[in-house]
């Protein structure tokens, strides 16, 4: 796990600075969630939970979110992904896409519930239309690209 800290730093820089020009309708992919998924696929559930907590805490510090919001969802996501990764055939692109879409939407849903609990109910329809759905689609697309890189590289090698 020597690449965890450099990966986290890269996420921080990309999410705060580099992804600005790539945002669609003010929405950027959730790279921190993708990092949680990447880390959790190769870790034990305990380690994935702790790493998810640290990643989420870092994301909270870099945003206007209450400290603990993303730590909560990311530690939960880390645990679930680490538990499920052995039972899911996530090397198939279509299954991977659904897995990422579902994961991102579920994480957003939990965040919405927590925000409702702590800050009062935000309008549900704008939250769905302007944050949850576009973020899930964008995150899933970018995640699919990142997670498929080994297969793409292998296919290219075979072609060459």
């Amino acid at each position, binding site marked *: 796990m020597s690449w965890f800290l450099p990966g986290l730093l890269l996420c921080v*820089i990309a999410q*705060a600075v580099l992804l600005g020009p790539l945002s669609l309708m003010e929405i950027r992919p*959730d790279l921190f969630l993708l990092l949680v998924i990447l880390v959790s696929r190769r870790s034990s559930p305990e380690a994935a*939970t*702790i790493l998810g*907590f640290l990643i989420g805490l870092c994301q909270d510090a*870099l945003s*206007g979110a*209450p400290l603990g919001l993303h*730590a909560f969802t990311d530690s939960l996501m880390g645990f679930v992904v680490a538990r499920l990764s052995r039972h899911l055939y996530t090397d198939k692109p279509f299954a991977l896409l659904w897995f990422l879409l579902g994961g991102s939407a579920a994480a957003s849903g939990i965040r919405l519930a927590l925000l409702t609990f702590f800050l009062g109910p935000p309008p549900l329809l704008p939250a769905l239309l302007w944050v949850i759905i576009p973020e899930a689609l964008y995150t899933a697309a970018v995640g699919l690209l990142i997670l498929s890189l080994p297969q793409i590289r292998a296919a290219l090698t075979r072609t060459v």
Partner: protein
Amino acid sequence: MTALLRMLGRYRRAIVLASALLLSFLLMTLQVRHDTAVVTFTRQALLLVVSPFIKITAATIHGVTSTWQDYVDLRTLREENKRLQLEVSTLKRRLDQLQEQALETQRLQRLLAMRDSSQAEFLTARVVGKDATNWFKTILLDRGSMEGVRRNQPALAPNGLVGRVVEVTPASARVQLLTDPVSAVGGLIQRTRVTGIVSGNLGAGARVRYLPLMADVAVGDEVVTSGMGGLFPKGIPIGRIATVERKSGALFQEATLTPGVDLSRLEEVLILKGLEVREGFESGTGRRQ
């Protein structure tokens, strides 16, 4: 004792997960309800660690991009017109630089004009980062408490209000934009002097809430800060009314507002210093207070 250790070992996954979730929940509760020193310290420490990397990245991106572009351009040049192409490239780069400088000068002149027209003290700051989530709308500035930035100071742009400072470290500050879902600013319809509260929206733009039901509010009306609440001085332009909604049975009418400032393309802002600010309804939900 052995039995306890065996049980801990057996349920370690559930214990780790429950501890992480409980700790997260506790942190959120502490911040939202009380905002303790532990939470403030944790936020500022994490921000302090990562903000130099963000600042350096933001400062070098422009240089790296132009250098990479130059490299790609040079690679595609034909040998026979290499010298000419290089000259054109140099001239283009110079022109780009001059155009960029002209645009920057224009922006800074507008900021300067705004500063000169006011008695208050201003500090110019560059935007070096955006919010790391899609749920909140905040920006990171390259100035901090060492330059005199304090929490709750208003941030402005030539076309109007940007937001307020919510978090300060020695070398950086975070500004909550007026479109942040938990932001609240006292607004005044300039034409009819009707007051309301401008708050953020999860979509684009902002909303003006708590407008009296019979008040005269029309599309295109200019909205400025009301000065009530004590955070923002009166009369700073906020934006224009885009749509007006009067729901049957509602106690108030609402309106959507298009901010005067394009908050997605901010490069520099002015921090309004030297104002005695106090907490009020404009401070939003109370978190980070």
